[in-house]
């Protein structure tokens, strides 16, 4: 057996790689469960790819055939219903993990130097994933699929001068149709998952391994010091058990409540002549949908929506406090928890029609969302902080 390993090592840095990046990879001892969500997101990515490959074997990317092909999968393909539900509920797990993962970054200052590239590659993954989910949603060709694609592609008509022509080019036709379905299918199954998400995840992990994980104290730990332990077996066992827990919840929904996360209206085939009364998007887009709808100006709304994601990229420069972690910064701590709560409120707003109280709430929440980022630079000069622990005490 060791002969085989030597044969391999002479030709390929396998053992060296495994030891450096997994077995002996130095990880802070004091990581809490907020640090588990990166690997959870990774697992959902794998689930989506595998189930996606299988669905592509039976799905037909043509407007006349798409809806029926999905029902064919549900009713005729052996275990097709399982593969379909796994794939349809996967994004819920994926975005759930991703929001908690990003929230950890926000709270513990993981975006600060020297982790800017880690943060930015993460944002690219987030954006790519939103595009991926959006395109995937068109494929079943249900009522909500069609109209969500129509509304969201229409957003780009807000661009001055080029907007309306750009939308036609984007759709490949004057309205969402076969041309749109074809390109969304191609990008959703080929370029985006592997070319973008896969590639950028590799870059993301590479950046991580260069600087090492942050930790709840925000202290930059000595990689050979007492507060750091090898990744294996400690974080392998921790990751495995937590992933198992998350998958248990996920599979509960897949087997017993799959329709809880699926929009009922999407079980109706797309009808270009009838717009649904109540346009809803998938839950993970709701907060951004709320931001979009809270600005009464078309272009303004679009800019606010994209801006709400892009502003995250500026965090390394907005927050230059010497203390990374909100644990020791009482003001940032409260503001950040409020930010999370506010995000949930925005989600609730996105679920409801933008009138009256809901609209007002949405505007207040949108305002708070952006104010949070604008307040951050002002904090270091003014806040009273808690004392940091010593590295030896960890």
């Amino acid at each position, binding site marked *: 057996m060791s002969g085989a390993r030597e044969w391999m090592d002479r030709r390929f840095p396998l053992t060296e790689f495994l030891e450096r990046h997994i077995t002996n990879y130095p990880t802070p001892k004091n990581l809490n469960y907020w640090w588990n969500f990166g690997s959870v997101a990774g697992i959902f990515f794998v689930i989506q790819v595998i189930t996606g490959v299988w669905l592509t074997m039976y799905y037909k990317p043509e407007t006349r055939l798409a809806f029926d092909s999905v029902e064919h999968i549900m009713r005729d393909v052996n275990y097709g219903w399982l593969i379909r539900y796994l794939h349809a509920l996967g994004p819920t797990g994926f975005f759930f993990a991703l929001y908690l993962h990003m929230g950890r970054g926000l709270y513990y200052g993981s975006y600060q130097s020297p982790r800017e590239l880690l943060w930015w590659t993460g944002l690219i993954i987030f954006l790519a994933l939103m595009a991926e989910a959006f395109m995937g949603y068109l494929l079943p060709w249900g009522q909500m699929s069609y109209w969500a694609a129509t509304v969201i592609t229409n957003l780009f008509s807000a661009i001055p001068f080029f907007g309306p022509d750009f939308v036609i080019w984007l759709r490949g036709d004057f309205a969402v149709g076969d041309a749109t379905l074809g390109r969304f299918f191609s990008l959703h199954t080929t370029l985006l998952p592997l070319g973008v998400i896969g590639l950028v995840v590799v870059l993301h992990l590479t950046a991580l391994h260069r600087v090492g994980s942050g930790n709840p104290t925000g202290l930059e730990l000595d990689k050979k010091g007492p507060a*750091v332990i090898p990744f294996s077996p400690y974080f392998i066992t921790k990751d495995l058990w937590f992933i*198992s*827990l998350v998958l248990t919840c996920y*599979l509960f929904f897949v*087997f017993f409540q799959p329709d809880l996360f699926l929009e009922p209206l999407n*079980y109706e085939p797309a009808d270009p002549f009838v717009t649904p009364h109540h346009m809803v998007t998938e839950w993970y887009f709701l907060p951004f949908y709320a931001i979009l709808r809270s600005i009464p100006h078309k272009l303004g709304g679009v800019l606010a929506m994209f801006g709400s994601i892009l502003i995250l990229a500026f965090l390394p420069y907005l927050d230059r406090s010497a203390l990374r972690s909100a644990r020791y910064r009482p003001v940032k701590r409260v503001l950040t928890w409020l930010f999370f709560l506010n995000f949930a409120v925005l989600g609730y707003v996105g679920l409801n029609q933008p009138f009256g109280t809901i609209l007002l709430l949405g505007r207040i929440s949108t305002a708070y969302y952006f104010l949070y980022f604008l307040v951050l630079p002002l904090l270091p000069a003014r806040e009273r902080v808690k004392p940091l622990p010593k590295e030896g005490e960890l």
Partner: protein
Amino acid sequence: MKIFNLLIILMLFPLALRAADAELPKLDLDFSEAALKRGEGVYKSSCQACHSLKYLGYQSVMTAEAARSAFGKAAPDLSLMAKARGRGRQGARYIQALLVSYNETPEKNSLFPNIAMPPVFSKDDPESAQKARDVAAFLFYAAEPLAKERRGLGRYVLGYMVLLTALLYGVNRKTWRSIKTNRSGKNTP
């Protein structure tokens, strides 16, 4: 661990949303084999005239053109109607409620005002409530014929996952125990 508990709650929160679906009257639906058979009979006698059920192989008698000229709209296919009108069993409840909500007012139906579909059961039919229940149950089945298999397999899968999670949790605790009790020493690989 406080945050950990919060996460568990977060993961199961969606279940609470389900309980919030309390708009429709709580009507009892029977999903037994007998009810499904009766429901299929009701579909064939009362619905198939206008509504196809294509994924179960039933064509409608009336064409879409004829329906449009008679009622203003083509009668939609019913294969997925139970799923299109509500999550879980809510869709079936909606269908049942719709069928018994016809009245004499100008709005024609108290649940769906100005509905294009005419009343299906006659007012004097004593079995109309039962028929509505049965056809709703049948349409629920038609929307996902393999639902029973899904739940059956689900029991095994969830049982297995709970076991696996418990085992892996145990392994993790054992692994970390040596670290947690080791206060004085360095971490030797």
